[in-house]
């Protein structure tokens, strides 16, 4: 799983990597130049030291050089990142709304026909298609950062920020909230799964699986225990908007926003004692159910894919 600026896999991340290479390379050259001058000023001959101390040297290396270098760098970076600054004339090929909430990601895939499909905590992207991420926050400032795909962009209450991403190859990348947002901020991550475009379309429009005879009991307990007051599952008696949509929770790689790998055991742990796994999260611990009932709920959730 890739979470590195140095292994870019998207157009913007590549530009950032280029800029970073230039910045660090140039800085290294300047650093060694300065060190060489410092050495010469200590151990060099009289004429060398006099040249270093001359007024002309100070004007050239101390004033002219930085002004020219930094100006060049500024224009280069403006040119490089022009796509981010100018905005986009062409409409995006897809739109995904991402709302950062304390401390998870509410993700809505907006279909060309306006249909909205709710998901959470895992972002699936089509390879080779430019997608616009619409970034909002209902509570505090968060920041979306998928280092391998693009730069970070803050999500600010009352504001809508837009970010274009296009991804070069299928794979799994990791993103994180990059702005301290309270208690379990460090446990607010997500996976990005880049799929071939046809596969992506099939997934977005696909029906929710689950509901085998084996999981009927779990579904019954899930519904009567009030899970649906906070969580939504398409096709079940559960339409809550407080917490993450669980329609395909069993198909996600992680639960609790990148905190634990998805498994029946981990779901049970989170339901019974989520506060010790992700302290401060808004879900109360449901310690009052019998162990087999919670296990049945977890089995039902695992079947939702």
């Amino acid at each position, binding site marked *: 799983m890739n979470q590195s600026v140095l292994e870019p896999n998207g157009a913007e991340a590549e530009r950032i990597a280029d800029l970073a290479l230039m910045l660090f390379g140039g800085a290294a050259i300047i650093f060694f130049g300065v060190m060489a001058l410092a050495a010469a000023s200590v151990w060099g001959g009289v004429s060398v030291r006099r040249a270093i101390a001359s007024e002309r040297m100070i004007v050239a290396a101390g004033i002219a050089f930085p002004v020219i270098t930094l100006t060049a760098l500024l224009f280069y970076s403006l040119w490089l990142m022009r796509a981010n600054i100018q905005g986009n004339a062409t409409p995006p090929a897809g739109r995904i709304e991402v709302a950062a909430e304390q401390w998870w990601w509410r993700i809505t895939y907006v279909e060309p026909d306006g249909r909205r499909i709710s998901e959470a905590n895992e972002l699936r992207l089509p390879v080779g298609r430019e997608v616009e991420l619409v970034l909002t926050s*209902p509570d505090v400032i968060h920041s979306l950062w998928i280092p391998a795909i693009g730069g970070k962009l803050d999500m600010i209450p009352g504001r809508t920020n837009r970010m274009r991403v296009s991804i070069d190859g299928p794979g799994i990348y990791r993103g994180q909230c990059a702005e301290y947002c309270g208690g379990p901020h460090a446990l607010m991550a997500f996976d990005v799964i880049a799929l071939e475009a046809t596969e992506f379309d099939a997934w977005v429009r696909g029906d929710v699986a689950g509901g085998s005879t084996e999981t009927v009991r779990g579904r019954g*307990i899930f519904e*009567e*225990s*009030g*899970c*649906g*007051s*906070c969580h939504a599952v398409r096709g079940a008696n559960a339409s*809550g*908007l*407080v917490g993450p949509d669980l329609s395909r929770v069993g198909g996600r790689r992680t639960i609790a926003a990148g905190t634990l790998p998805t498994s029946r055991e981990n779901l049970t742990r989170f339901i019974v004692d989520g506060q010790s796994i992700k302290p401060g999260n*808004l879900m*109360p*611990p*449901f*310690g*009052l*159910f019998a162990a087999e009932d919670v296990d049945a709920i977890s089995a039902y959730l695992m079947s939702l894919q």
Partner: protein
Amino acid sequence: MAFVLLVGLGVAAAFLFAASGVYNVAASRGHWWIVDQFLRFGMENSVKARAPETSPNLDDADLIRLGAAHFHGGCAFCHGAPGSRPSPVVQHMLPSPPDLAERVDRWTDGELFWLVKHGLKYAGMPAWPAQDRDDEIWSVVAFLRQLPDLDARHYEELALAEVQVDGGGGRELATAESDPDGVGACARCHGDAGRGPQTKLVPRLQGQSRDWLARSLRDYAEGARHSGIMQPLAAALKPEAIEKLATYYAGLPPLAPDDDPRRGSVEEGQKLATSGDPGAEIPACISCHGSDGSPDYPRLAGQPARYLSAQLAAWRNGKGGTSPTHAIMAPIAARLTDQQIADVSAFFASQRVVGHPGLAP
């Protein structure tokens, strides 16, 4: 130097006095007059120094009735009550518990509150078992304010409600199959078949789920749910008695909603209860507390608004216990505003229970 020597001598003398066994600790002997005066002086000043200066409105029929019902079960054994003397056993304690009807006027409301809450060291007066339930303690103070004016008949009306305690015949009493004080302990506050609670500060148990009733009693018995009134009663129950009580109240038909004036808005409360407030991270109440919710959860329809508000406020303030149900409700209640608590309490209080087998369809 002389001062240190003097203090040292004093400590040594006190130690010798205690070590010699000269002092008689017998409760049968009483204190010397001067010692009695000294202890009383110290006690009164200690209470006055610590008591709160403000009190809630105590002229409140619900508070008084709750306090009266608790007094009958919790206090009268030692302090007596109008129409019944304290046990001869406690009269031979030292100090012997006073007749409160004669004493309460010496204390302010805050001082009575402090005494009931904290008890008295070396005097046999226990502290309130649930130190975070000031609301319950004020109900006892509210009742104590009424006590001097009560005769036996009015006291029974208040404390026993209309519960007719029939201790059974002589055989049942002789073989302890019937405990004349225990019978009616629940009904004194919560009512019974067709008769609602005497006070709006306690829940209506009629028609609640058996699982929830039994769980609540067990939580009280284990101290996971805090109440100075319920904990001692529940702790005295054997597991079979808990099951029997839960079955009894679960089988009673639910009561029709009361017609008290509503403090909050029923319409606003209905919105919150049925849809929640996702922006404020508040889930819909009825997902758990409606008529088709899990039997692990209480049904809230028809519950008194004052009881609901008080419970929500206690959770919001981080009080009330450590039980699993507390762990679920406390974080949700913490997100509610005062107005939302009033509204949602008004809504549930106005609702009629549906779907109980004891009700006509």
